[in-house]
């Protein structure tokens, strides 16, 4: 296993970089999209509520691989070209944002209704009340489940391997097929994933304690 790191360190490093890059981008955008969709779901407008519901049900219930492949092969053919990294990252963002939306919606609904009512009666608009009063309280409730989503996101970024996105898993496949040392290669890849996810998991636990 050490020899895998010695001989293919550069490839693994490239993979690690791409995995982290993809995760960070997907995390950022799925938080924004997920929170927006969550707000759609609690909006007074029935039309937007339905839009939010459809978004969640579609992207939550299609396998990530299918979404990734769709952006890799279908979108470039009919809409505009994009490489595997972009396609995989977009797929991962849409997929994860549907889960984040569900989590954040639950958080919003866990905030006492009096908070919104008090803010509206005080003259704030719905969005002002959401932004300044409800969401900050909702995020406290959702940090533990959100932490799980983030860890899942990092692991799910391995979808890039299937669309030639040069991530950790893809590089692992390359090394395994070049050396035929499947066992040690995937152990090495697994360790590198742990290096990303373990600190994340501990940081989330720390945050949870701090906010409790």
């Amino acid at each position: 296993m050490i020899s895998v790191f010695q001989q293919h360190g550069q490839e693994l490093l490239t993979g690690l970089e791409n995995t982290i890059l993809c995760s960070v981008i997907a995390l950022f955008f799925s938080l924004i999209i997920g929170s927006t969709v969550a707000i759609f779901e609690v909006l007074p407008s029935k039309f937007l509520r339905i839009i939010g519901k459809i978004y969640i049900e579609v992207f939550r219930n299609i396998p990530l691989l299918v979404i990734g492949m769709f952006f890799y092969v279908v979108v470039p053919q009919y809409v505009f070209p994009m490489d595997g990294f972009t396609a995989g990252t977009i797929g991962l963002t849409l997929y994860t944002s549907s889960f984040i939306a569900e989590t954040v919606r639950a958080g919003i609904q866990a905030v006492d209704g009096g908070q919104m009512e008090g803010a509206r009666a005080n003259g704030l608009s719905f969005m002002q009340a959401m932004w300044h009063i409800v969401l900050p309280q909702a995020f406290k409730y959702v940090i533990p489940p959100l932490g799980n989503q983030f860890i899942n996101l990092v692991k799910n970024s391995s979808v890039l391997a299937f669309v030639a996105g040069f991530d950790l898993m893809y590089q692992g496949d390359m090394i395994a097929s070049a050396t035929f040392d499947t066992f040690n290669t995937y152990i090495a890849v697994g360790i590198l994933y742990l290096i990303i996810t373990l600190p994340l998991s501990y940081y989330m636990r720390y945050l949870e304690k701090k906010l409790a």
Partner: protein
Amino acid sequence: MKRLRKMLLVAGIFILGGLLGACSSSKTQSTWNEDKANNTITWGVKADTRLFGLMDVGTGQIKGFDIDVAKAVTKKILGAKGKAKFVQVTSKTRIPLLKNGNINAIIATMTITPDREKIVDFSKVYFAAGQSLLVKKGSSIKNVKDLNKAGTTVLAVKGSTSAVNIKKSAPNAKVLELEDYAQAFTALKSGQGQALTTDNGILFGIASENPGYHVVGGTFTNEPYGIAVDQGQTELKNKINKALSEMRKDGTYQKLLQKWFGNVAGFNLKEASQQ
């Protein structure tokens, strides 16, 4: 902090344990004895490769030249009642599956290479392929030299020799490796690359179903296909070699070749049957 260290220790022990377990489990039994007892040979075959091994979506059965050769070899070895069992593999999974005993032999468009001979044993050549290129009709790419430019992207399949070869033949091109031929061809159609490279037999199979695409530039490598067994399974290997020789002598082999490749335009049967 103390807990973290403990966690890492536990993780380390698990990994170490796994390593040791894997090393000690190298098997010594004869695959041939098992096969004889079960009256069955389990073959690893492709299921996504037209002409060689393709899943018929309607019946759920895999059909192709590799399949027919495997069936014929099985009958020659085990007799008329011998059974051939098929397990779907990809270029990426076939060696691990052979090594861990899930399959007894690989007949899956597998090129005999010195690297592979270090970890598996090959039979005699049963199909002489050569690597070629599939491009969209009207493409400016006519041969492998046209690919050797920065900015061109070639599509290949993970774990195949063609991925390795193309990096040597066209070092300036970017190579993207996908899971299987179906995905690689879909990627070609959606413009993720300008050419798809693999063995000519496979490319002819794809082109025969997709009239907008054709094989160009002839072959630029020799890819002799062999049947692989795990290292040390000499008895099974010898039985397979004997069966292949008999098939060539009694005409079974030529019949199968004609059945699958006789109607493929541009395909050279003689070249393919070279030993």
